[in-house]
């Protein structure tokens, strides 16, 4: 099966500049050598804590951030070899929905203008717009009369529907969803998750779903990649990750999630893995395995040798002592 998208060896290092001459004094290693594929019709969940590089990765796929090294192949085309103009055309097929529906919509444009904008950018004449806009608004659960209103008149959930409608109006093949529900209330979150599910079936979409909430990831993903400090530590099917995770970080992450079930919580609490310490700085990541400073299984080998992703069946784990 050919992949819709392949990211290979993606690296992003942001320079840290100081002083009036903007001298580079170091680098933030936001993403360090990440490789993954997305198959047509698949949802890949990308999960990790803040600062692990998941949003940077998502943005590099669309070249909203240029990678320091590595490449992204989409539908057989190497995106990093495209000119700006060619990339712009390509974005018709890869769209993005942002986390904050308050910051990502232009307050001076009406909802209709916002949703129609991508089609104008991609050269559709204004007379052909209306039916397309009407169609997508209806599919996203936005009433027609909302079209002439401005973003500030809407709640967070409705704004996120506008963000989704804007992304889908170009009929993309892949949609990057960067924490699309984390700013929403619980009761509204479920509406948006169901909407994303319906739209995926309707338009035969593939998703890269970036989130920090493991319950949401387990609900929406077909495959899951777990990131820690700029690296994928484990990647596998939803079943692999949520039932047979072999990486200690994935295990700790799953164990830390509080469940909305008092009985289950009582049992989990007795054998909960509470990680000590915090994520080290990406400016100067630990040698060897990046997780070793917080890992209860760390040995001397973990300090000297960097583990690589090793396949155990359909699950790939980057750990010297997986279990």
């Amino acid at each position, binding site marked *: 099966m050919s992949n819709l998208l392949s990211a290979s060896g993606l690296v992003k290092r942001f320079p840290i500049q100081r002083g009036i001459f903007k001298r580079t004094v170091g680098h933030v290693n936001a993403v360090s050598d990440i490789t993954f594929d997305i198959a047509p019709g698949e949802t890949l969940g990308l999960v990790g804590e803040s600062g692990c590089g998941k949003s940077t990765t998502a943005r590099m796929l669309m070249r909203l951030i240029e990678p320091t090294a590595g490449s992204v192949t989409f539908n057989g085309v190497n995106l990093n070899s495209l000119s700006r103009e060619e990339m712009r055309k390509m974005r018709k097929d890869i769209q993005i929905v942002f986390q904050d529906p308050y910051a990502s919509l232009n307050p001076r444009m009406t909802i209709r203008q916002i949703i129609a904008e991508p089609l104008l950018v991609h050269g559709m004449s204004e007379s052909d717009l209306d039916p397309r806009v009407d169609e997508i608004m209806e599919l996203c659960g936005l009433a027609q009369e909302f079209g002439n209103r401005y973003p500030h008149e809407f709640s967070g959930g409705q704004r996120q529907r506008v963000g989704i409608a804007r992304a889908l109006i170009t009929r993309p093949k892949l949609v990057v969803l960067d924490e699309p529900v984390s700013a929403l*209330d619980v009761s*509204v979150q*479920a509406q948006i*998750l169901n909407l994303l599910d319906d739209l995926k079936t309707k338009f035969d979409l593939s998703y890269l779903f970036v989130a*920090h909430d493991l319950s949401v990831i387990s609900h929406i993903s077909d495959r899951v990649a777990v990131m820690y400090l700029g690296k994928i530590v484990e990647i596998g099917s*939803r079943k692999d990750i949520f039932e047979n995770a072999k990486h200690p970080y994935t295990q700790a992450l799953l164990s830390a999630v*509080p469940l909305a079930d008092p009985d289950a919580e009582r049992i989990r609490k007795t054998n909960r893995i*509470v990680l000590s310490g915090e994520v080290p700085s990406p400016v100067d990541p630990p040698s060897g395995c990046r997780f070793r400073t917080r890992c209860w299984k760390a040995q001397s080998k973990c300090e000297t040798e960097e583990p690589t992703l090793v396949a155990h069946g359909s699950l790939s784990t980057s750990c010297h002592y997986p279990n």
Partner: protein
Amino acid sequence: MTEPLLHIDNLHVHFNTSDGIVKAINGASLTLNKGEVVGLVGESGSGKSVTAMSVLGLVPKPPAIYPEGKILWKGIDLLTTPERDLREIRGGEISMIFQDPMTSLNPVYTIGHQISEMIRVHQRVSVKQAKQQAIEMLELVGVPNPHQRVDDYPHQFSGGMRQRAMIAMALSCNPELLIADEPTTALDVTIQAQIIEILEKLARERDVAILLITHDLGVVAGVCDRISVMYGGRIVEEASVDEIFKKPLMPYTWGLMKSIPQMSSGARKKLYTIPGSPPTPRQMIDGCTFAPRCEFAIDKCFTDAPTLENYGKGRAARCHRLSEPDFARKLS
């Protein structure tokens, strides 16, 4: 029965704004006993933070007005207590930690200075003793190298460490009640687990009552003894943690629980959704505040506001339809 530590009785909070009166809270009742952990759950705009801030007298008056209700702290009504006496209680007997530890710490003073200041306001101790106490508090909440870190400024602390410093500050005067307003919402899940562990330890070992305000039903399920659910400025249901999760009575609580995605690898089901979005305090709703989104609403729900009725075993809910004998069975 002994007197409860905190008893909020039918609290109403309105705000006088240029666009008229905004009725933020219209009937919030809540009881907390010594050493008890109670969760106050609700979505944004439900009034949970205003309720908590009202306990400490932190809502500026004006614009706030309190047309009805009482907040009894060991029998004394805090709403009528003069500011001078309130200052003794605030920080001394009742402490609060906030969601965003960066904005609640002063960036130009060291962590140690801010904790000792709090201690010196409430206790007659020397600067040196206060600092020593501050170091002990930091150690208690798990800040590594407290002797050195006590002289750090807030920006030198990470998010999780700042929240620890806030907890240390809140606990420095041995309060009897700690109000925690979304204490883990800004934190990552592995750090959240650490902070929750600390809060639980405190409740157990130091017998501190905790009012935990959150929108995360997972957090309350693990920590709380009892839960009150707030919606549209009213408490709509209260019960013990086991009962409310097993058998919610109010359609909102029921819908909220069904709409959370479960962490599992099992077969995927469509999530239950509550249509629409939560009301803003500006919206004037005559009947039940949840009626416009409720799939069980009948005509009466849109005209008459239901009252909070008791259903035995410390359970209470606000719903007209619960008077029908077999209605509760529909919520399963």
